[in-house]
């Protein structure tokens, strides 16, 4: 049996250097960054250094980086903060149909507060067409949010094109949820041309609990968390210094080996996709075949169900994920698979494998060994499978 972690989309293991860097801030450097006495000095400096490192990774200025506790918080701050602060000039929000639920649900909450939301459709690969975004724009559109890449089907969106179009013909702010891309592929806020960008440390070998929202200077935004003056008054609360320090180190390491990261996982991804779609019958890739995250494999396996696959894979040491209804705590089918037009029964056979630095070709070969018998076993049990 082999221990194979294929769920880097859920979270990544923090690098040893990240953990080492965090430890002093749990111990002798435990102070509050806002304290005037000497206990505040080290933590305050560490937070600002981390800010600088995150800024460098995405091509931003330090004072445009705001720390939050999660990608979801960054997304909520972007959607609600922009909508509320700028409500006088417009109450229309445009988001893609495949956004993370933290964007979609935040937009739906704004609907309850009197805003209007337009969901932009996607094609069968989950790609947003800038033309469709343009059609959705109105005079009162205040925010457009389109993710940089989708974590369920891996598709990378034409954000730069969309941002350019939106900024060219409207006053709306443009936000991109880049939680799935920062630290995996090059992300530059100037190239993308966005006003806001979300990122999360636990996606690129940093700790959980440390994320950020890039807010371009001069952007008007209402804080979600009021109170003290932390994060220039935009996000009150004593900073999670260890987590922020960890995020900084993770960002620094990502900046150094970004190219190697995708080079490492790409062949593993392609071997897995080849195996799944050619060695086993009735398995289909979801998301774009080439414009996709370098370590992302998402398929639907016909005639069987996702959670059952995950349980059997888990027994064999393989950790994976799925978008099936049964694997969602809310017992809802994946809105992303629905938006790309995957038939509901087929969507229940969703399997999601996300590779990382710790994976090797041996892992892929092991998966190739253990997965086909799992599929056979479940298909033999299935009333839908009529094959031999």
């Amino acid at each position, binding site marked *: 049996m082999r221990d194979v972690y294929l769920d880097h989309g859920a979270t990544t293991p923090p690098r040893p250097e990240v953990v080492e860097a965090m430890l002093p801030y749990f111990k002798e450097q435990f102070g509050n960054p806002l304290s005037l006495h000497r206990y505040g000095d080290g933590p305050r400096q560490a937070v600002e250094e981390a800010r600088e490192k995150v800024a460098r990774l995405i091509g931003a200025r330090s004072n445009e980086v705001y720390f939050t506790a999660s990608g979801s918080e960054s997304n909520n701050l972007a959607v609600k903060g922009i909508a509320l602060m700028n409500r006088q000039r417009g109450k229309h929000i445009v988001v893609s149909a495949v956004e993370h639920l933290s964007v979609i649900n935040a937009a739906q909450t704004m609907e309850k507060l009197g805003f209007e939301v337009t969901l932009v459709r996607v094609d069968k690969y989950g790609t947003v067409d800038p033309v469709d975004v343009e059609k959705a724009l109105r005079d009162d559109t205040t925010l457009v949010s389109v993710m940089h890449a989708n974590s369920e089907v891996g598709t990378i969106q034409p954000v730069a094109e969309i941002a350019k179009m939106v900024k060219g013909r409207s006053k709306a702010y443009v936000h991109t949820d880049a939680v799935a891309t920062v630290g995996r592929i090059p992300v530059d806020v100037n190239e993308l041309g966005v006003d806001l960008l979300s990122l999360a440390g636990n996606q690129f070998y940093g700790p959980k609990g440390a994320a950020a929202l890039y807010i371009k200077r001069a952007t008007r935004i209402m804080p979600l968390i009021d109170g003290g003056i932390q994060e220039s008054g935009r996000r009150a609360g004593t900073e999670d210094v260890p987590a922020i320090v960890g995020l900084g180190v993770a960002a620094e390491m990502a900046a150094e080996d970004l190219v190697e990261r995708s080079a490492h996982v790409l062949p593993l991804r392609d071997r897995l996709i080849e195996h799944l779609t050619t060695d086993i019958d009735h398995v289909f890739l979801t998301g774009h075949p080439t414009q996709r995250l370098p370590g992302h494999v998402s398929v639907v396996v016909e*005639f*069987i*169900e*996702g*959670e*059952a696959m995950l*349980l059997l894979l*888990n*027994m064999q040491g393989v950790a994976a994920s799925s978008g*099936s*209804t*049964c*694997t969602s*705590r809310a*017992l809802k*089918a994946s809105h992303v698979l629905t938006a790309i037009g995957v038939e*509901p*029964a087929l969507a*229940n056979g969703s399997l999601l494998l996300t590779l990382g630095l710790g994976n090797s070709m041996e892992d892929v070969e092991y998966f190739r060994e253990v997965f086909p018998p799992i599929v056979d076993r479940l298909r*033999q*049990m*299935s*009333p*839908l499978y009529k094959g031999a």
Partner: protein
Amino acid sequence: MPQYSEKVMDHFMNPRNVGEIPDADGVGSVGNPVCGDLMTFYVKVDDNRLEDVKFKTFGCGAAIAVSSMVSEMAKGKTLEEAKKITNADVAAELEGLPQNKMHCSNLGADALHKAIEDYEAKAKEG
């Protein structure tokens, strides 16, 4: 996977009575792959007893475990006894199901009952 009991995992890993009965006396199907669960039960009836029970299931760990447990509970019982099997009985025999999987236990009992009803309808026709 912490939320499943040992009994549920056992029935999922080693399901009893998987298969079809080609000349079944009754067949019952419940659920729908759109929701993520489809269970089909096959029964062979002899002298008012369920001589044989088999099932095929498309669904999650709970769905497969429930189907297996229902088939085990029903096999050998009289039709009356089998009709009395409820989802609560099934969940209890499995030593509990997570709250959001209780609906799977409904499906199992329902599919079995449908198979029995199918047999009875056919038997009436003679």
